[in-house]
């Protein structure tokens, strides 16, 4: 194929844009189809990235180490006796205990977190109402509160432990998706609720930043590989958890993209085969262009630029539409397809994040579709004689 000189390229680009406008009906339908194909991809990637980003922020703001007891290779409750032992390690600034578990709120599976009393006031900016101060007081996530029409001050009990009565002192803000189905209470209440007195499900170790390696070494890096110093504890550092979260999102994202591309490819092929949209007109125009002296490479160049222009238009439209729906309308109607347990009208803020990489991925997909639909068929037609094409 001849390499177009700048002026030829400019001419072809203008001709391509002009022809898109000239065939505005066809351009509109093709763009619409592309938007329909790109929109779910762009939205899913943006929401997935938003979720991952929120998770990373949470992890980044959390403890440096998470310690639990090893129970047959899994995490088990850890005795609160370790709290004072771990506090004595060099570089450790604070050790907090936390109870994390799951239970049913009527028929809804929710997460329960028990925090030490001194950790609760930090939640104040995220709470509508008051943070728990007395035993039996809890905070509820927006999702639970809305679903069961629970107001601040209302008492309730749960089926897992019906003898224990709780009182709602505040509702967690909808800003964070993770807090939607969350119940936060004091550590002691959580101990009683899960019947693990004297234990915690995790100990959170905070260190001064430059001391982390010093703490990590005696805990997870035994001096003698054959003799671990604390063999029955399971320790995970923040970076390890971050890596796991990234890997999980990348894995899920990768599976989604592969499935999406398979479905999209099949849909596109079906569309191209069944519609034959505009092919006859295109065939005749190719014939005329060849007859008046256009070379095949020049025609393909023009059609390639049409594909690029239409791909960019469709991608921009898909991104704008996605942004309008995720940010302007909080993912109404669409978030349910990408986030579990979110209804038609999400009760919590749906996070989303648009990265240039997602745009490039969308553009690559759009180009694959348009080029395979436009350029390939144009090339095949251009192999025939102009007289045959114009007939």
């Amino acid at each position: 194929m001849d390499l177009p000189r700048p002026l030829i390229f400019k001419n072809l680009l203008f001709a391509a844009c002009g022809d898109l406008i000239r065939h505005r009906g066809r351009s509109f339908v093709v763009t619409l189809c592309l938007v329909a194909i790109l929109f779910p991809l762009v939205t899913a990637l943006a929401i997935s990235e938003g979720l991952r980003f929120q998770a990373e922020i949470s992890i980044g703001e959390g403890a440096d180490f998470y310690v639990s007891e090893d129970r047959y290779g899994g995490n088990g409750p850890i005795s609160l006796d370790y709290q004072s032992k771990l506090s004595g390690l060099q570089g450790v600034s604070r050790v907090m205990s936390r109870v994390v578990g799951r239970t049913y709120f009527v028929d809804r599976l929710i997460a329960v977190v028990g925090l030490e009393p001194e950790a609760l006031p930090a939640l104040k900016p995220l709470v509508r109402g008051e943070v728990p101060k007395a035993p039996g007081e809890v905070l509820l996530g927006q999702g639970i509160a809305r679903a069961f029409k629970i107001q601040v001050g209302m008492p309730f009990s749960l089926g897992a432990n019906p003898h224990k009565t709780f009182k709602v002192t505040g509702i967690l803000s909808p800003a964070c998706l993770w807090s939607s189905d969350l119940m936060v209470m004091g550590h002691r209440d959580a101990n009683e609720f899960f019947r693990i007195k004297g234990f915690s499900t995790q100990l959170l170790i905070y260190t001064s930043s430059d001391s982390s390696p010093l703490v990590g070494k005696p805990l997870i890096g035994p001096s003698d590989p054959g003799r671990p110093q604390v063999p029955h504890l399971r320790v995970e550092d923040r970076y390890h958890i971050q890596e796991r979260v990234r890997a999980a999102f990348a894995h899920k994202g990768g599976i989604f993209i592969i499935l999406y591309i398979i479905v999209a490819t099949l849909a596109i092929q079906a569309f191209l085969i069944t519609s034959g949209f505009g092919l006859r007109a295109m065939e005749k125009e190719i014939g005329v262009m060849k007859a008046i002296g256009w070379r095949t490479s020049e025609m393909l160049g023009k059609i390639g630029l049409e594909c690029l222009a239409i791909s960019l238009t469709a991608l921009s439209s898909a991104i704008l539409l996605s942004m309008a729906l995720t940010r302007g309308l909080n993912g109404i109607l669409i978030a349910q397809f990408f986030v579990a347990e979110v209804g038609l009208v999400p009760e919590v803020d749906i996070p989303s994040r648009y990265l240039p990489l997602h745009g490039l991925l969308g553009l690559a997909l759009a180009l694959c579709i348009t080029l395979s639909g436009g350029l390939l068929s144009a090339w095949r037609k251009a192999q025939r004689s102009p007289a045959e094409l114009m007939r």
Partner: protein
Amino acid sequence: MEKGPTITGRTDEVKMEPILRAENLSKWYNAGRPDEVRAVEDISLEIYENQYVVLYGPSGSGKTTLLSLIGTLDRPTRGQIFLYGRDITEFSDLELSRIRRQTMGFVFQSFNLFSGLSAWENVSYPLIPMGVTTTDRFERAKFLLERLGLGDRLDHSPEELSGGEQQRVAIARALVNHPHILIADEPTSNIDTDSVERLLEILTGLKEEGKTIIVSSHDPVIKSRAEVLFTLVRGRLKGISYGENE
């Protein structure tokens, strides 16, 4: 006028090379199948520079097919075509495009203008891949359209033009690359009587400028102006005759 069938379109005795020569040209569609159509069968002819040639015959006689073959718009099933002495039968697609761009201009029966483009944009369309600036393209299209009496129709789209005007736009498009040979397929079939007269004037004018004109037609008016008349019947060349200007 009648001089009997011959393969040459030249009557004088001076030895000149034909610019276009066809040897035993055939074009079969669906060759080898029961529905095979032999549109053109074993035609040989010569066309010399600055001639006004008419391929004459009734509908279905193979005029358009022959025009497509000698105009490099289609490839023959058999036979050879020589342009300026070079056998172009086996030329690549790229080489044929170069010939169409540099040597020939086409006026199609149904004009084949691009709808939605203005008259000047249609005329200048062949110049787009040649790297001609928009200003130069406009100037060249304007010059040609004014010459053909369409100076006030520069911005009109084909849908806004009459049949005769559309044809003149198509002629201007065919001339925009300064071709040596102008090929017109049934140019009078889609225009009114007044436009036919105007068309004949234009073609005569172009011939006087030195261009070779090859026209296919079944119109006696076109036939009467021919310098060289090739008569086709059922895909075969039945005769050649010479007009009074030859």
